[in-house]
């Protein structure tokens, strides 16, 4: 029997009946909507996107993913008096806050003590959101990086189940917590710690790893208190105590939308300059677009012109030029801002900017 003969026998034994597709009565569409109504999980590391990565993704959505989660309102700042932003020079100083910046930092950090790598050579290169239940910190040492992502504990089972599609879990212990190792490839692994104090942590490799080096580094991952964690952050990381000062610098050449409230820049966690810049520039852009939409529907031509001019001015904002070497968020802002200024509000602008 030839291979062709044999294959034909196998083909004839195919149990699938294609006519079934005509008889689904919309069940396929129903399933699609069911699936899309479930929450997505972070599968792309939330960090400043490097150009190479962004080029592979839909730019706008990727940019939103880079800053997702940093616009959440925090109870820490909402307890502060309302500060209405009065323009680039009207920003309240840090000294007017009820407690000092350093105390703010500590208060924010104490909620969720964090993990560090207790081995020389590792430097935090990207951080955001450590005071929230969601957050991320990435360490680098030579050609290896290790990202630690925090999630609320109620999401643990979802993530765990999802990772079962990656590989079989292998049980280990990290920072005195039971953990599961998942293997993406021989150079790419993750370790998911069981939840504790309301969150769980997932560590994910990047760069030149082997299983042996990964196992070895896991023995150096330690849980630290707030002071140690803050001390380990590089000085350029924006922590809560720095927010007003750093925001004021960014907003110096950025036109302020009507009623812009600096408290929406609430930033109880820690962010690297890219993430913080995206938070500030994104917030301002979102507000100007909302103002353009309002003015357009109200027939307020003067306000439409003003909003369009403000959006076009984004090409001159220093913060975006400073960020431009590191990721594509600025290009997304410019693309959306130009479209809106030309009278076309992209449906996806909120996703694109993280509004």
């Amino acid at each position, binding site marked *: *029997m030839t291979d062709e003969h044999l294959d034909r026998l196998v083909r004839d*034994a195919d149990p699938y*009946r294609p006519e*079934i597709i005509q008889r689904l009565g919309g069940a396929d569409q129903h399933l699609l909507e*069911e699936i899309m109504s*479930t929450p997505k999980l972070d599968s792309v590391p939330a960090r400043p996107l490097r150009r190479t990565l962004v080029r592979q*993704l839909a730019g706008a959505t990727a940019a939103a993913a880079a800053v997702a989660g940093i616009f959440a309102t925090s109870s820490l700042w909402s307890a502060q008096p309302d500060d209405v932003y009065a323009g680039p020079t009207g920003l309240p100083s840090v000294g007017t806050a009820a407690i000092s910046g350093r105390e703010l930092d500590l208060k924010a950090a104490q909620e969720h003590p964090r993990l560090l790598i207790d081995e020389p050579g590792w430097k935090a290169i990207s951080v955001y959101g450590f005071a929230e239940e969601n957050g991320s910190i990435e360490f680098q040492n030579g050609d290896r990086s290790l990202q630690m992502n925090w999630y609320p504990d109620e999401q643990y089972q979802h993530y765990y189940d999802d990772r079962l599609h990656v590989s079989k879990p292998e049980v280990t212990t990290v920072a005195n917590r039971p953990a599961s190792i998942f293997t993406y490839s021989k150079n790419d692994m993750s370790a998911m710690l069981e939840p504790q104090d309301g969150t769980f942590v997932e560590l994910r490799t990047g760069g030149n790893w082997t299983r042996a080096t990964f196992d070895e580094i896991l023995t150096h991952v330690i849980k630290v208190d707030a002071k140690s964690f803050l001390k380990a952050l590089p000085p350029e990381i924006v922590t809560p105590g720095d927010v007003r000062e750093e925001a004021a610098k960014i907003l110096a050449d950025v036109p302020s939308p009507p009623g812009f409230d600096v408290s929406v820049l609430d930033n109880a966690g820690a962010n690297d300059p890219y993430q913080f810049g995206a938070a500030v520039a994104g917030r301002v852009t979102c507000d100007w677009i909302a103002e353009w939409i309002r003015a357009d529907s109200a027939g307020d031509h003067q306000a439409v012109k003003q909003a369009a001019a403000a959006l076009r001015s984004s090409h001159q904002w220093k913060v975006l030029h400073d960020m431009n070497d590191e990721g594509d968020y600025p290009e997304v802002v410019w693309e959306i801002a130009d479209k809106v200024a030309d009278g076309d509000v992209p449906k996806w602008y909120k996703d694109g900017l993280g509004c």
Partner: protein
Amino acid sequence: MSSEDRFRHVYAGNFEALLAYASRRVEQPDDAADVVAETFLVAWRRSADLPSDDEVRLWLYGVARRVLANHHRSGIRRERLGERLRQCLTAVSTPDPGSEVPQRLAVQAALRRLNDTDREMLLLTVWEGLQPREAAEVVGVSPTAARTRLSRARARLRELVGDDPHAPGHVLDVLAVPVPKEGR
């Protein structure tokens, strides 16, 4: 294209292929709904980093293969999605007269006796219409190993069904189900 639009596009372009893939590999027709639902759920959760259009179907087959492995292991559904599809598949799955043909039953029984990976290589090639190198990607073996497995699967199957020149004759032709074009 937003990631939502991309996902809809991927779903529309691959739903039937995945339904066929799952239907061919489950005992009960409605179990295919679980496999399809869970496979696309994984794709949805990863929609930000789905492979390009010309790679995505192989990737989905790979996911479905792992979903099936878990399905067989646990025998329980983890998600309650796809209930309507499940009911629908149960309702429309009337017995196929062709399934009772002894030769088909014999081939199916023989296929079940192959090594899992060898069988999957053969089925991906014949039922899903993949090139051997594509099937190799789905099952995660090298192209060289894939050729070996494919050749071994055919040799073993030939032994099992008997080297019968009773080649597919008119009966099978009449009852055979057209193989859907997989577009690859």
